[in-house]
């Protein structure tokens, strides 16, 4: 099939960007969306033009590196699917496809579709861990965890850190990302002891990094490739308020 692409090109963080038109023939339905971009880049490189820079790596939906806005939707038209798992069978012959970077003031554009998501690392550094040093651990089965709790913790821990939640949020809020880590660790017995400190630090860092507040549109959950639930945001708010009350 033939597709018409409108791709955001921007040389660097402080340069002006614009949508540039490209068209590709002979795109097959089996191709992944990123294979299609590879095909475009192969063509551009052979012509001596700069290829479109985009983030990608594992191409199996788990590393969280890929992610672009496709026709205005984070990761494209399919529900709960990363960009790399999207295939051209989701498009029709003659389609025009708009491809833009994940936009948020906390995710500055590096070049073209590549953005800087290091603000997420800052949030984790401020408390997204259990303070344990190698060597301190007790026998694993000395910490029994009910099946349901382990499953719920896993649901939250499954976040791949792609940033789609921020990109799709009208406030550019990182609430879902932050809440997922807070829930994961707060649910587990070994993570409880520092949950108060954790939630206060992580929420503060989220603000410091320039992410907006959550206003409950739930767009983040709708676009999240890992189906992380907005209920975790409710838990984060609960943990946060509890921590404020208990704070000495």
């Amino acid at each position, binding site marked *: 099939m033939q597709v018409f692409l409108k791709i955001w090109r921007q040389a660097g963080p402080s340069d002006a960007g614009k949508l540039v038109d490209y068209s590709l023939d002979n795109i*097959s339905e089996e191709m992944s969306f990123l294979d299609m971009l590879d095909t475009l880049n192969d063509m551009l490189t052979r012509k001596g033009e700069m290829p479109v820079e985009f983030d990608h790596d594992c191409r199996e939906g788990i590393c969280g590196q890929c992610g672009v806005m496709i026709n205005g939707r984070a990761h494209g038209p399919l529900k709960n699917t990363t960009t790399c798992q999207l295939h051209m069978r989701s498009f029709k012959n003659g389609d025009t496809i708009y491809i833009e970077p994940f936009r948020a003031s906390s995710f500055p554009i590096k070049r073209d579709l590549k953005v800087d998501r290091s603000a997420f690392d800052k949030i984790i550094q401020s408390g997204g861990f259990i303070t344990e040093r*190698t060597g301190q*651990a*007790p026998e694993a089965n000395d910490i*029994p965890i009910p099946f349901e709790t382990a499953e719920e913790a896993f649901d939250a*821990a499954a976040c791949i850190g792609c940033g789609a939640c921020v990109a799709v949020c009208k406030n550019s809020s990182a609430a879902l990302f932050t809440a997922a880590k807070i829930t*994961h660790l707060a649910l587990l017995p070994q993570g409880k002891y520092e949950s108060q400190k954790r939630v206060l630090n992580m929420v503060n860092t989220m603000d410091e990094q320039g992410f907006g507040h959550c206003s409950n549109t739930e767009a983040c959950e709708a676009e999240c490739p890992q189906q992380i639930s907005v209920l975790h945001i409710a838990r984060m708010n609960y943990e946060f308020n509890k921590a404020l009350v208990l704070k000495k």
Partner: protein
Amino acid sequence: MALDPKIPQGELDKKWSHYKATAKLVNPANRRKLDIIVIGAGLAGSSAAASLAEQGYHIKCFCFHDTPRRAHSVAAQGGVNACKNYHNDGDNIFRMFYDTLKGGDFRAREANVYRLAECSANLIDQAVAQGVPFAREYGGYLANRSFGGVQVSRTFYARGQTGQQLLLGAYQALMRQVAAEQVQMFTRHEMLDVVLIDGKAKGVIVRNMDTGEIERHGAHAVILATGGFGKIYYLSTLAMACNGSAIWRAYKKGAYMGNPSWTQIHPTSLPQSGENQSKLTLMSESLRNDGRIWVPKAANDNRTANSIPEGERDYYLERKYPAFGNLAPRDIASRAAKERIDAGYGVGPTHNAVYLDFSKALAEQGEKKITAKYGNLFRMYEKITGINAYKEPMRISPAAHFSMGGLWVDYELMTTIPGLFALGEANFADHGANRLGANSLLQACVDGYFVAPITVPNYLAGEIRAAKVDINDEAFAIAEKNVRQQIDTLLAIKGTQPADHFHKQLGRILYDKCGLSRSAEGLQQAIAEIRDLRASFYIDLTIPGTGNEINSELEKALRVADYLEIGELMCIDALNRNESCGAHFREEYQTPDGEAMRDDAHYAYVSAWQYDGPGLPPILNKENLHFEFVQPTVRNYK
């Protein structure tokens, strides 16, 4: 030259405790004065960086991703092995040691393999304490499942995302040390050379991939934890940016390369569907617990899977290996699939796959149970292929997956360059000629959490009087100059073909001639073809743009330049080994029924290749493997 792996004396089960009891220590005040560079922040790199930082060393950690959480450890699905014996099914350290050694076709070091098994139980404790949400039973205790190549249930798992959860545990520990300012993290930096001063590893040259800046960094020890190079086959289960450059640059500085040709070809990947494809997706091996592998009994059968009656299906693994059936080890399962595909029994539009069928399991256990175990994998399969595997069998095919080979290291995980260590998949140790499923996460973690934090300080104890490394030393200047020259050379070619063009061709040569099966004739051809390809690379490569900006074509070209050299060494290594063992199957050395024929009398050694200069053939050094505690047997899974 015979190599000394520095294995501690004594009984097998006392070696590691004896080593730990006598290893040299560095007092806390001196640790603050010592710097360690860690290259790579996957499971092995993050865990080593965090654990050494916790001890008080100053760490500089580098990775080419925008955050350490993206490293390819993240993609390991099935699980991590540990001999906790929670199933009371006869598991223990010795049995796990034996399974791993046998799985590797008796081509690994006894002492290393024993240590891997010995530390496995601790790793589960460590991960649970970090908050890794492993699968649990209703009583709240940890759940286990069985995995290919063993007869006990010792695999711990977190749905199909075990690698992700273990990596996040290590990443979070690393982030904690970044916050504590014990670790300086350099993301989007790629290592381009190791710097040696007076024969010791004292630093690295790295490229900032966002600005193109070339930087010098010095330290008292350098740890490489840069993963495997299976992406050399182009189509593989690895992430796009996985590469062999760091270990190759170390090789060219004098570190020996161990068994470079031993690559695991994973049996349960999705088949190639088109020419523009850049990646093969892995389906977890755990699927083989309930899926049955088959092809039609008739060659070139074009009927759909469901219209082929039971009696006309050949469940070839069950037929050939009744004791292990569909759970036969990876090398055997992959070779059996290739044998059927090559003989004309392959399925799918291009007849390049075999079926993995869940209909029996679905009938026996019901859809709900199968969904609970493999739901995410079935969803992923449908996303990629558009096929519902509850209704018709999956199509799978072998794909390059894991490098058993890598930098040669001694018992302390130190390469032949003093002060240069290699951890995880970047080293050659522990897995022999074939890695068992769920042992890769284990090795990365054990190396990073438990081995390096003992052995690196043992080395550093001799460095406490060494001054801070001076990055203005001439050795840094020369290394930087060479790196700059290489980049300029590649940019100046200005030919017509992008780096991927050469990478694809190299991949085809290696897959055909240095993949699942090899022959002397094919390998000699491959060496000649690779040399030609390398020559054309330096004539016809094109890279748009410059070196002083984000330039993914330049990044690829630098990696491919190294792959074109690694590929040749792989073939030389495979050609030298006139036997079949594990993943290394030489067509000349097989039994009448097509099984591998090992030659313990002549090849019970590790091939450790030494760089001898540009254009010169590498020098073979041998580390003879001594089997003191088990006798190598013919590896029989029948």
